[in-house]
């Protein structure tokens, strides 16, 4: 029964492959964050504020040309920061198009306005306003996602978190996010090892019911391990003086180059807000 067999192996192999993918993504992000590019040289706080300003400008703009211009700036920044075009296409644009496309799909048919085309067979009307509305949504999301991915790919994750302090994000939240990222890999590794170990001892095939049982048992074991670890982590924190309040150390220093970049971000954002109003 080949179909059944491929289903069984697929379950374990798919899980293992997902863990490996997640780790590869993180590894790629860490590598690009260490590259010698334009955005990598910018202070994380300046980068965070600047990119958020550009995202806000793209979200507020009512001009297709302005949003397209912001996307072009994002692509130029990616090129100057050694972020591969292929990564942008595969990890951002295609994924965003699939996700946002589904949301935007009804707009051309349900938005009232000037009918420019009739859908063959179904006979639905496609309106100009509907198409524009769907186009704006997709382009805005593509631009915002590209800018956000640029921030993450050109900044070590712990620096992104620390930079959030400039937006008055509480230190305890920054610490929790940092710990989540830290332990995500440990739990992923643990899950990966569990699945590998099961695969190494498996002969034959599992029925659908058995597969569900294995998945539930694995999730239970992983949860129990995670719970034990979280208890130990709390004790380790307490042992080094944690008493409910968290303090973090800011190591960033603003240089002249950062002021120039901050000015450039501000200029582009204000211009985009003005032209796209």
């Amino acid at each position, binding site marked *: 029964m080949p179909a059944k067999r491929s289903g069984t192996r697929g379950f374990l192999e798919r899980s293992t492959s997902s863990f490996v993918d997640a780790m590869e993504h993180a590894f790629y992000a860490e590598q690009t964050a260490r590259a010698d590019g334009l955005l990598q040289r910018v202070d994380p706080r300046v980068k965070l504020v600047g990119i958020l300003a550009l995202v806000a400008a793209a979200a507020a703009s009512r001009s297709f040309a302005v949003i397209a211009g912001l996307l072009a700036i994002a692509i130029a920044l990616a090129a100057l920061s050694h972020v591969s075009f292929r990564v942008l296409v595969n990890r951002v644009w295609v994924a965003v198009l699939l996700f946002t496309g589904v949301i935007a799909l009804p707009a051309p048919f349900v938005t009232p306005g000037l009918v420019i085309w009739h859908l063959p067979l179904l006979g639905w009307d496609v309106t100009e306003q509907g198409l524009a509305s769907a186009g704006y949504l997709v382009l805005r999301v593509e631009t915002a996602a590209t800018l956000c991915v640029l921030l993450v790919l050109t900044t070590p994750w712990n620096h992104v978190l620390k930079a959030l302090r400039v937006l008055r994000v509480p230190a305890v939240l920054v610490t929790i996010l*940092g710990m989540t990222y*830290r332990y995500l890999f440990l739990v992923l590794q643990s899950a990966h090892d569990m699945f590998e170990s099961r695969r190494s001892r498996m002969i034959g095939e599992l029925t659908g019911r058995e597969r569900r049982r294995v998945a539930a048992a694995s999730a239970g074991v992983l949860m129990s391990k995670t719970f034990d670890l979280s208890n130990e982590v709390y004790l380790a924190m307490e042992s080094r003086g944690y008493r409910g309040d968290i303090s973090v*150390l800011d190591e960033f220093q603003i240089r002249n180059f950062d002021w120039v970049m901050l000015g450039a971000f501000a200029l582009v954002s204000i211009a985009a807000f003005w032209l796209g109003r």
Partner: protein
Amino acid sequence: MSTTNTNSGTPVPVFEVLDATYRYRDVTALDHLNLTVQAGRRLALLGANGSGKSTLLRILDGLCFPDEGTVRFCGKLLTEESIQNDGFGVDFRRRVGLVFQNPDAQLFSPTVFDEVAFGPLQLRWPPDQVRRKIAETLEMMEITHLKDRSPHHLSMGEKKRVALASVLVLDPEILLLDEPTAALDPRSASHMINFLVRAKGGDRTVVTTTHDLDIIEDIADDCLVFHEGRVEATGTPAQILGDAPLLKTSGLLHSHLHVHKSGEIHTHSHLHRHEH
């Protein structure tokens, strides 16, 4: 170190455990334990897995408290309430440091730098002092090059060194180490042992749990053998290592099959030795 009450006139011990019992639900981890740790001594707690060593370290670090009996730190009662007291709690956390057996539990920060900074920042040290102390500690532990690395990218040996650095940065007078050489490759283990050997004759009190008999002569002045939550014996490393029946009943000495050069295979127990 002794397992009896101190006599009047002797210095106040750093730790004094009296008749302590600790249970995990139905399992008794510590059974009416008595222990005194004097300042500046290096004490090894020996015992097989599950003998109660790690539980005792957590009690000495004020992370859990005995169901029965008392623990005193420098003469002051160590309780859940006293450790919550700002003055005593902060002073205790600065003076006593625990290095956990599992470094993944101890290394919870995104980078090595943040990890080492955690303790001083929680104790509200000024930022300049924190930065200076981190630089000194990373240098001393020879891990400056790992400063910006994430803990999940480190080897087990590196993780253990970072875990130790994260505690040493506070300059603790009393260092509690839970299986410091467990799961380490020989090179990383020797690095850790060198650190413990250098603690000899200093002001620092070091309490180490281990079941590695090869290292206790180097890292300890006194030994205490645990078995099922009770103290089975106390003595110098030489006295303990010379008592084979004690080591066997405590699960510290084992027999297994050996292949000799002649090709003969038989079972006998012996201590392993390392190169000098």
